[in-house]
Each structure stands twice: as structure tokens, then as C-alpha cells.
């Protein structure tokens, strides 16, 4: 009797659990499908002007349209290969005025029309210092945005330059003025809209489960064509290795960056489809040209151009890339990732020549006078610190490899492995000798290179305070060049000038490899934003698995 009493609820629970297992949907058409991305970070908000977070950008691609976007070539000069999105067409009205005609079919997901007032409002918000958008500096050449009529937006520029069109369309996602106008600008970073956005893109927001997942569903009425996959889910998995494991185990469908050769090999062995695409990140050993304890004084080692060049010559970058990254990395020919159109392996760089490096150091008086294996001069050893964040296994590995290469020519290196937030603080305040930093490029060299390597970046992201009048003049001319060939030639000269000054050692540029479940077809990764063309991906009905058919 007693035993029967205990068994009854167990049997009931078991039957209910089995019944629950039958919960399967019935979506069977060509527009079904669920794509789960194993994302390693959670965005702080989905309001586009308030964050540069990569996952927020990936989701933003699905929710908020730009007026137009770069094509697969990622050209940024003129309007060649740009793809119309919210703007159906555009024309120049004089050298400084660009007119966009909005697609009359475009709608916000609450049913309102997308109008030129939204475009005007968006520019105003992105450039409002109260909002503090990270994209604001990239819009400084645009004088104003106004509406001519409800479907015509007019951009006026302060000067003529080749990337006017790119600046007008690339940095801003158009926002719904009717929903955001009432939100005080100083509260945009925490606005409720950022966690429950209403967009005009191919997908609608469904839900955000903090620290777990963000779900979107296709808008079947999207004016540029119904998205091929019905549901997109970003599954938040902070550990990269576990995120890769989820894709290998079939619990997620895509990991857009595998990062290490080992992960690529595992993904290949698991039968996943691999898609290599140009990387947008480069990593360098940044030299601080100012003293780390007093930024008004020159650094005792790195203020000396000859010494910097000698130290650069001592590093065999090609062998470092080969040993640490295999085919996944390339030696950058300057401060750039392969995403940039100006990437050219023939750009002149400081060559690897450790014998010449040793001769230069000897010539400068840096010799091992006391026989301890470390060069010294006037009693001062040739020694410095490398600052590296604990969060990056690859950069920590590189720090050790660099330490060994410098040791071989009699230079002593101490490695300071610190938390990312501490590294950020120290590089921002100039309290470092050298730091291994990673930098992300957008498709244009104009804003990023100027911010990181000219006086405009002092107090900003030119952490090492490199300055060269020649370089800045070349950059200014390249940014305002009238043709792409002319710009390319000028950029090349600028890069060669900078390389000759050796303000850092450009270590590697990662080649991206995305892994996708093999049932997904029509996969295209645009190099600057892998998720930009997600709406064109497909899962054929005959290849669907259980989760593709689920309906809620």
C-alpha cells in the first residue's frame, strides 16, 4: 500500500514528462528554420547609438536599417557597390549636398511609416553630446540633415571628400522618432526601448532573457523580401571554448569566429561548414613614446626612433604568426586589418634582422657591460614592461614569445598580466611602457587610423602619443583625395612613413573563420559585419531538424 502511494506521483510525472516531449511544432514551409548563434557576450542595450558592442551590432543589423550599406567588396569610396536599404535611391544636389529618397514601403514594426523626419531625428540623436554616442566623432564632417518632404532626407557636408556617402549611411541606423522623441536624451543609455526595441528591419524583437538569450522572429511582411530563416536566437555563452562546443554538439548553429587553429580543426572534424572571411582586428605591441610616470617627458627608451626601429627588427613577426596562429593569422603591413582596402603586403616595413638590430644597439652604446646578459648604457639596463590583459590567451602567449625574442638580443622584458579593466585604465592614462593591444577597424581607414595615430587621438586612442607631421599631412591628403587610386597611393605613403618611425610592432591580423551547421544554405559573411546578410540565409525544408519546425 505504502509502495503504491509513493509510485503514483512518479508515474504521473513520468507520463506528463513524456507528453511534454511530444511538444513539437509543425512549421514545414520554405520560411521555417531556427538559427542559434553561440554569442560570447551580452549587449548592454539594443539601442544602436548607445553601444558599439559587437553582438548589439549583429542584432541591430536585423532590427534597424541603415539608409544604404556597403556591399561585399566593402568599398567605402563614392557609392560604388553600396546596397539600397531604407533609401530607394539617392542623388547629389551640388558638391556638398546628398539627397536620399526613402522607400515608401518601409514601415516600423508598430505600423508607422518610416519618414525623413526619422532620418533627421536620428542624425540629431547620434550627434547629441548628451547621448554620448561612440559614433559621434565619425559624423563630424556632416553639417546637417533635414527633411525636404516626408520621404526625402537631405545631407549637407562641411567639405568635399571621397567617403561622404559612406559617412552618411554607414554609422547610423535610422531610429523611430515617434517612439524615442519623448525619452530624455540623458537617459538613452538606460532607456527601456533598448531592451524592447521596435525596428524596421527584417526581424522583430521577441524577447531578451538576461544572461541567456535574445530572440528575434522574421517579419514576413518585410518590404525588401521575407527573411529565409524564421527565428534567430543569440544564445549567450561567455566562454569561447564552450560556445564552440555548443556548435559542435549541435546545440547552436553558428559561431562566427573560431579564433584558434585548434577550434577550426575541431569544427572541421565535426562536419561543420567553415567560411573564412577577412578579419577586422589587428594586434600590435604599442610603444609608449612618453614616460610612463610623467606623460610630459619623453620615454627613456621609446622616444628614441633608432631604438624603436632596432627593437622592431629584433622581432620575427612571420614566425610568431606561424607558431601561434598557423594559417589563421597574417603579418599586417601597418596598423590595419585585412578588412581595409589599403591592405597591401608590399607596403615597406621594418625588416626582421636581429643581427642588424644588435649592431644598431651596439652603435647606440647599449652593450652588455656587466656580463649579465642584458644590455645597458650609463648603468641603465635595456629593460621594459609589456602590459597584456589576462582575458586574452593569445596575447599572453604573444607576450612570452616576444619576451624570448627580445631576450635573444639582450633586452630584458617583464610581463604585466592584468585584468582588462586595469589595462584599459593604464593605457588611457599613459601608465605603461608597451602594451599588446587589439584594434578593430571599420571598412574605412579614415577615422580609425586618424584617431589612433595622429594628434587628434591624444587623450583618446593614440595611447602611445605617436606624432609625425609628415604622416599627418599624408593622412589628411589621403582622406580628402579625389580618386580611389590617389587615396590608395597616399595611404601607402602614410603607412610607410609610420612604419619607418616604428611606433609599435604590428604583430598579427586574425583571419576570421565562421562555423555554421551544414543544413544552412546561401550563407554569406560580409567581412565587416558577418550578420549583415542573415536575412538571405536559408534552411531547405528537407534539411530541417526538430527545432526548425517549432512554432510557438
Amino acid at each position, binding site marked *: 500500500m505504502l509502495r503504491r502511494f509513493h509510485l503514483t506521483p512518479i508515474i504521473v510525472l513520468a507520463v506528463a514528462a513524456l507528453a511534454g516531449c511530444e511538444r513539437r511544432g509543425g512549421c514545414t514551409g520554405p520560411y521555417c528554420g531556427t538559427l542559434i548563434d553561440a554569442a560570447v557576450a551580452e549587449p548592454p542595450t539594443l539601442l544602436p547609438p548607445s553601444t558599439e558592442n559587437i553582438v548589439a551590432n549583429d542584432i541591430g543589423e536585423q532590427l534597424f536599417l541603415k539608409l544604404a550599406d556597403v556591399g561585399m567588396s566593402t568599398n567605402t569610396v563614392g557609392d560604388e557597390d553600396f546596397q539600397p536599404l531604407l533609401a530607394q535611391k539617392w542623388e547629389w544636389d551640388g558638391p556638398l549636398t546628398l539627397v536620399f529618397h526613402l522607400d515608401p514601403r518601409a514601415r516600423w514594426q508598430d505600423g508607422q511609416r518610416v519618414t525623413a523626419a526619422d532620418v533627421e531625428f536620428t542624425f540629431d540623436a547620434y550627434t547629441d553630446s548628451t547621448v*554620448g554616442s561612440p559614433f559621434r566623432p565619425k559624423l563630424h564632417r556632416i553639417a546637417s540633415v533635414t527633411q525636404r518632404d516626408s520621404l526625402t532626407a537631405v545631407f549637407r557636408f562641411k567639405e568635399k571628400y571621397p567617403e561622404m556617402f559612406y559617412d552618411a549611411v554607414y554609422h547610423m541606423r535610422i531610429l523611430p522618432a515617434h517612439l524615442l522623441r519623448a525619452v530624455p536624451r540623458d537617459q538613452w543609455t538606460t532607456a527601456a526601448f533598448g531592451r524592447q526595441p521596435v525596428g524596421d528591419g527584417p526581424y522583430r524583437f521577441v524577447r531578451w532573457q538576461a544572461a541567456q538569450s535574445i530572440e528575434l522572429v522574421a517579419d514576413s511582411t518585410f518590404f525588401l523580401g521575407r527573411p529565409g530563416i524564421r527565428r534567430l536566437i543569440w544564445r549567450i555563452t561567455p566562454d569561447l571554448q*564552450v560556445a564552440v562546443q555548443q556548435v559542435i554538439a549541435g546545440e547552436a548553429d553558428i559561431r562566427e569566429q573560431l579564433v584558434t587553429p585548434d577550434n577550426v580543426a575541431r569544427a572541421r572534424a565535426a562536419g561543420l561548414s567553415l567560411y573564412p572571411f577577412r578579419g577586422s582586428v589587428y594586434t600590435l605591441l604599442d610603444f609608449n613614446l612618453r614616460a610612463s610616470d610623467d606623460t610630459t617627458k619623453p620615454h627613456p627608451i621609446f622616444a628614441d626612433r633608432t631604438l624603436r626601429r632596432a627593437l622592431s627588427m629584433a622581432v620575427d613577426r612571420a614566425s610568431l604568426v606561424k607558431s601561434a596562429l598557423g594559417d589563421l593569422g597574417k603579418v599586417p603591413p601597418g596598423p590595419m586589418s585585412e578588412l581595409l582596402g589599403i591592405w597591401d603586403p608590399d607596403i615597406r616595413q621594418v625588416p626582421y634582422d636581429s643581427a642588424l638590430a644588435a649592431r644598431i644597439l651596439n652603435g647606440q652604446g647599449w652593450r652588455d657591460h656587466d656580463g649579465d646578459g642584458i644590455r645597458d648604457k650609463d648603468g641603465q639596463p635595456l629593460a621594459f614592461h609589456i602590459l597584456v590583459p589576462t582575458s586574452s590567451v593569445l596575447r599572453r602567449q604573444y607576450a612570452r614569445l616576444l619576451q624570448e625574442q627580445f631576450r635573444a638580443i639582450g633586452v630584458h622584458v617583464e610581463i604585466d598580466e592584468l585584468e582588462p579593466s586595469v589595462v*584599459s585604465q593604464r593605457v588611457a592614462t599613459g601608465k605603461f611602457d608597451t602594451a599588446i593591444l587589439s584594434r578593430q577597424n571599420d571598412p574605412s581607414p579614415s577615422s580609425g587610423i586618424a584617431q589612433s595615430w595622429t594628434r587628434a587621438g591624444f587623450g*583618446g586612442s593614440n595611447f602611445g602619443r605617436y606624432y609625425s607631421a609628415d604622416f599627418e599631412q599624408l593622412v589628411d591628403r589621403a582622406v580628402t583625395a579625389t580618386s580611389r587610386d590617389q587615396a590608395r597611393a597616399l595611404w601607402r605613403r602614410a603607412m610607410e612613413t609610420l612604419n619607418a618611425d616604428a611606433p609599435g610592432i604590428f604583430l598579427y591580423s586574425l583571419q576570421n573563420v565562421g562555423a555554421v551547421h551544414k543544413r544552412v544554405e546561401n550563407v554569406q559573411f560580409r567581412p565587416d559585419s558577418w550578420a549583415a546578410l542573415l536575412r538571405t540565409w536559408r534552411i531547405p525544408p528537407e534539411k530541417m531538424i526538430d527545432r526548425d519546425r517549432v512554432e510557438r
Partner: protein
Amino acid sequence: MTGAWLLRRLVASVAIIFAVVTFVFILIHAAPGKPCGGQSENVDPAVCDQLNRQFGLDRPIPEQYWRYIVALSHGNLGYSASLRRPVAEAIVETIPFTLQLAGAALLLDFLLGLGLGIYQAGRVNRLPDVIIGNATLFIYSLPTFWLALLLLLIFGEKLGWFPVGGASDPVLCAVVDSVYCLKDRIWHLVLPAATLGLVGAAGTARFQRAAMLDVATQDYVRTARAKGLPERRVVLRHQLRNALLSFITRFGLAFPFLLTGAVLIETIFAWPGMGRLAFDAILTRDYSLVTATALVASTMVVGGNLLADILLGLADPRLRVRAGADVEALTA
């Protein structure tokens, strides 16, 4: 145990929690690093300045502390700079996950640990005792993160028996709203709870074995045997019952261990609990969030210990008398 004793313990608990919050507040503000752009070195300083102004992080630390305490006294835990939402919201969402994980791990820890400890004590220095003793020592010595990665690799990726991270199937069961989804949640809980629970159980087993052996030599156990009571009854009624006192003490101590372990385990298994929240908050120097998670964690630890003390008092009449005497002495 008296009402006064309980009141005294409650007041002491509140004081401890307040001290912990103050200490954590000072410590996190004194730590190097900045709250903005914690994970990336490329954030524009102007953007950081704007965020710092908005969250009041540009004000002097004493003023920030005063504002925090005033807000706290009104039940306001502040705003998270990294999550861009109220701290209380984030905590309320994550606590159930941590309690589920800690609860499951605690269950495994105590059931398995207790069972093994009792079994070993009954076979002291015999082969099963030696094997289990070495096995528990081996597991106890393993770094938790390593065990977690190993379990994930074997049972998640290779064998596919359990999910590789997460708290639920994001397609079918984003929320627990049916028996299927409850099962799904339990399924996702197995590996993280096993990682935490196994390491805990290894410690509990060793602890319990020693406690049982301590009691085994006591006069009342010998008397029970001399009276001719069956061995099973001697062990369960007389030996185990008294050995449980140290087990209850361990219950109080298990809370901090589980919360500390949860930080690592939740990150590896992508379990959306408070440990992961605290870990991310420390990395991003999210001051409000760090202080709030410390507040909640210390409340749980102090509460766990208080509960253990109450249970001990209920289980051991000698402690009740001592506590009462203390109170009398204090009020005299």
C-alpha cells in the same frame, strides 16, 4: 535558545552584512581599473566620461558611498553601469538560478557525502574504505574548473548525454512553464550541479567518516552495543545521530563554498546565476552591481550560518542551555 539570543544573533548578522557591504564598496573603488570599457581598451574616453557622469561615478568616493547607503536604506540597490538596468532587477532574475544550482549541488553533496562517510566508517581500514578514501581525496583535489571542462567535454560534446551549457533549451523552453520544460531545466542542471556537488561530496564524505569514527568510541555507543542492540540500530540511532552535529555545522560552512564555486561554474556552464553576474561585474568594475551581489551573498552566508546555529541548538540540548546562560549573563 531564547528569543533574546535569536535577536542578538540577528542584530549581529545585520552588522556583519553592513560591514561586508562597506568593505566591498571601499575595496572595489580602491581597486585599479575603470568602470567604463572594462573589457575593451578601445572605448573613447569622451564616451566614458558621459557614462560616468550619468551613473554618478565622477563624484568623490565618500559622496558615492553616502548616496549608496541612503539609496540602500530605501531599498534601492542602484543602477548597473554595465547592464544599463536596475541592479535589483538583475539580482532578482539571477538568484533563482543560483539557488537552483546551489540547492542541487548541496543535495548531491550531502546525500552522497553522508552516505559514503557512513559506509566508510562501517568498514574502516578495509578495502572499500581505502578505495573510497582515495577516490574522494582525488576528487577533492581536482580544480573545479578543470572538472567542469572535463565533464563538458565527455558528457556534453563527446557523448551528447547532457547539454553543453545554458539553463534551458532556448527554442522549446526559454521559461519553465510545463513539465517538459521542468525536465529540460533539470537536464541542464545536471553537469554544473554534479561538478559542484561532487567536489563538495568528497569533502563531506571525509568529514563525516571522521565524525562517525569519533562518536564510535563514545561510552553510549559502547553501551548500546553491550545491550545487544542490532548494529544497524547502533549506527543509525546512536552513532549517526550524534555525528550529525558536525554535519549541521558543515551545512553552514557549505554556503560560502557553493557561492564561491558558483562564480566559476556559472561562467563555464553559461548558467545565468548570481555568481556569473558578480564575476562579470568585478571585471567591468560595475560598482553598484559588485556591492549588491556582495550584499546578497553575505546575507545568504550569514543566514545559512544562523540557520545552522538554530538547527544545532535544536539538535543539541547542551547548546541550548549554554546559549540561555549566555543571555542570562548578559542581561544580569
